[in-house]
């Protein structure tokens, strides 16, 4: 028993990076530094360094923001929804999902600041905030979601921090930090009671807030009159899409961590199989919402909508649109319905396609609408009729994506990727009295 427990802690305790980990960190840092440089240029010269202009007034910053919000939603799915439905197979994935959610929501908040023309006046949002504006709703729900996600990441970590504090006894500084973070967790009955009831409460709380962040993000577009955004379907459509994007993001992180840290004992083929099944279901739900979103306006084909839809189906955005729909949704569904397709490697590849498709899908949602205003585009340089992101914009966007990955990487470095305490309890591995007494 004792050895099984030690083995478990040894397997799951955070480890120092090898050369691969360090190289990865350096790679991310280089991208981030390049992005920071571009952002400084943007601050100096204005948003003119981007490809955005008066007609294409939002660009990849906003679509990237929507992508981050979408990915962050998964924390609530994997942790809260499955936790509340008393499912246990997902225990090894909960922390990964929470880490991904926290990283994504932090970057969503930062990305929206990058898009602002006057980030120096950000505090006006609080000093002069108007509750009538969907942007204020977004500020409120995103910050609320960030706080709840952080708590939902932190609370289940308390027993693990205590375990790690014992495990790293040789490294006094690390041990002390883990000890402090564990908030004197000793595992008494009272502590356990508070622990499980607060996690239960957070799990319930996070679901409406998670729905709110993405519904409000959908409303940012839906509150305008523009064809392509003027839809009553947008809230649920965005949420369905968010679950797809987030789940595949978790699958990717799960696969990579499983390989890098050789966690095959904990993250098994069965987990991949289950996640694959969930992804199929979510993709089908999302396809259903897509059908609603595009079929009905096409059927009616009002003047303005028709122009917009034509540009998506057969016009300049057709290639992107169909690649995102077919490559990012239809093909993944076809692959994943077969058990062979849900094996780790094919699942990983399919998830990459889904995430990529999800990113470009947001581009398709945000950008084409803006090039079809109600009045004709006249009196502005021809280049203003089309939007293509500049390299500056790309480098800043890549930096935000790299930052999200950096946050994930750093959290993985210092937190047990797989909850030790929960795994031990589920596997009935009892802590040795020696360690328990400390």
């Amino acid at each position, binding site marked *: 028993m004792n050895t099984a427990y030690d083995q478990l802690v040894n397997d799951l305790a955070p480890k120092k990076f090898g050369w691969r980990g360090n190289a990865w960190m350096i790679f991310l840092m280089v991208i981030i530094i390049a992005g920071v440089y571009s952002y400084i240029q943007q601050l100096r010269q204005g948003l003119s360094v981007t490809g955005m202009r008066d007609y294409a007034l939002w660009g990849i910053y906003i679509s990237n923001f929507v992508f981050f919000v979408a990915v962050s939603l998964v924390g609530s799915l994997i942790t809260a929804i499955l936790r509340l439905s008393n499912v246990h197979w997902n225990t090894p994935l909960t922390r990964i999902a929470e880490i991904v959610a926290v990283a994504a929501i932090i970057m969503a908040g930062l990305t929206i600041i990058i898009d602002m023309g006057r980030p120096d006046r950000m505090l006006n949002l609080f000093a002069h905030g108007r509750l009538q*504006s969907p*942007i204020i709703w977004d500020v409120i729900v995103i910050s609320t979601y960030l706080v709840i996600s952080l708590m939902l990441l932190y609370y289940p970590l308390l027993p693990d921090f205590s375990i790690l504090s014992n495990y790293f006894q040789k490294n006094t500084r690390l041990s002390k930090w883990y000890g402090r973070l564990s908030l004197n967790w000793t595992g008494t009955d009272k502590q356990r009671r508070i622990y499980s009831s607060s996690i239960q409460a957070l799990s319930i709380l996070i679901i409406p807030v998670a729905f709110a962040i993405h519904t409000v993000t959908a409303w940012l577009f839906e509150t305008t*009159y523009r064809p392509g955004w003027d839809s009553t379907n947008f809230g649920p459509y965005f949420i369905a899409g968010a679950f797809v994007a987030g789940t595949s993001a978790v699958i990717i992180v799960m696969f990579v961590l499983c390989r890098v840290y050789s966690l095959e004992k904990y993250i098994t083929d069965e987990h991949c199989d289950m996640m694959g099944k969930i992804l199929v279901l979510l993709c089908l739900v999302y396809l259903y919402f897509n059908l609603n979103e595009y079929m009905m306006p096409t059927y009616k084909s009002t003047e303005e909508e028709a122009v917009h839809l034509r540009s998506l189906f057969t016009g300049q955005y057709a290639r992107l649109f169909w690649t995102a729909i077919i490559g990012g949704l239809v093909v993944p569904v076809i692959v994943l319905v077969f058990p062979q397709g849900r094996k780790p490697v094919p699942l990983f590849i399919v998830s990459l396609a889904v995430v990529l498709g999800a990113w470009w899908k947001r581009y398709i949602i945000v950008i084409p609408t803006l090039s079809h205003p*109600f009045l004709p*585009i006249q*009196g*502005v*340089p021809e280049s203003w009729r089309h939007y293509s992101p500049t390299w500056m914009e790309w480098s800043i966007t890549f930096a935000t994506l790299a930052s999200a990955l950096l946050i994930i990487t750093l959290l993985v470095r210092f937190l047990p990727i797989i909850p030790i305490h929960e795994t031990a309890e589920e596997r009935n591995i009892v802590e040795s009295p020696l360690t328990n007494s400390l």
Partner: protein
Amino acid sequence: MEKEKDREQKSRRSFVGQGLKTGLLMAAGGALLAKVFGKPENPKQEETIELMSMDGSLMKVPASAIEHSHETKSNYNPREGFPNRKFVMVVDLAKCRNARKCQSSCNKNHYITGENAWIKIYKMQDTEKSAPYWQPTLCQHCDEPACVKVCPVDATFKRRDGIVLIDNNRCIGCRFCMAACPYSVRVFNWSDPWQGDKAEQTDYTPDYAGVPSQKGTVDKCDFCPHMIDKGELPHCVSACPNDVFSFGDLYEDTVTNGSGQSFKLSKLLKDRAGYRLMENLGTQPSVYYLPPADRVVDFEEGLKNYTEFKSVDKPEGI
């Protein structure tokens, strides 16, 4: 001399009466005033001026108490607007031949240095079979402004006199108002506007948009409250050689064109089948259009001025 003075006063009185009754006591022609009343005929006796107040009663006030509104602004609150006014504009499409004088005057007086003018003359054709026409389009100053609704920081606001303005000192540059506006009238300062000393050294106030403009904030047509305050018409109205624009007050039911002719607004809209842009959206614009029926100008005439890719002329060498 006495007679002459009397006549002077009378004409001044009628000018004030005709001019926009701002409700604040307004004197006109400061320089002229000084010339007439400044003469030391009888220095002991204080000069008085007769003025008409908002409710139409005449009153005498000492000349020294009069501020010269042509030089200094009356100190009304730019966020509240002029009391008891509701400004409207009528655009007569039958008269527009794309002379673009409204645009160049607006560009010049608001020191527009970007690529996108605040007033644009669209080449429009509603259906395949209907005749094309020119449609000058500026901010519609909606009574249910979609832009104001979505602004997160109350930077763009609606005044009681119907004018929608932007406080460029508060705007955070999120561009949500631009996405919300169905008329595409809002313009963003993507980079530093470089407007030259005159604009840049002026003290900023929201009721004179563009003086100066600020990087990273939104600009648009302001309906020229700075001109209204002086008792004058907006730049585009007075610059138009064809009297396309008429500007006035909904409560007075009167609009006046650049030549000084006044019309009864309700009759004009009824007789000429006036309409507003995208009325179905419920934005309630303050700008009315008269359809291009019984045209007095040729559409083709405007084609020589038509610049599909340009709305702001830049001085050579910049």
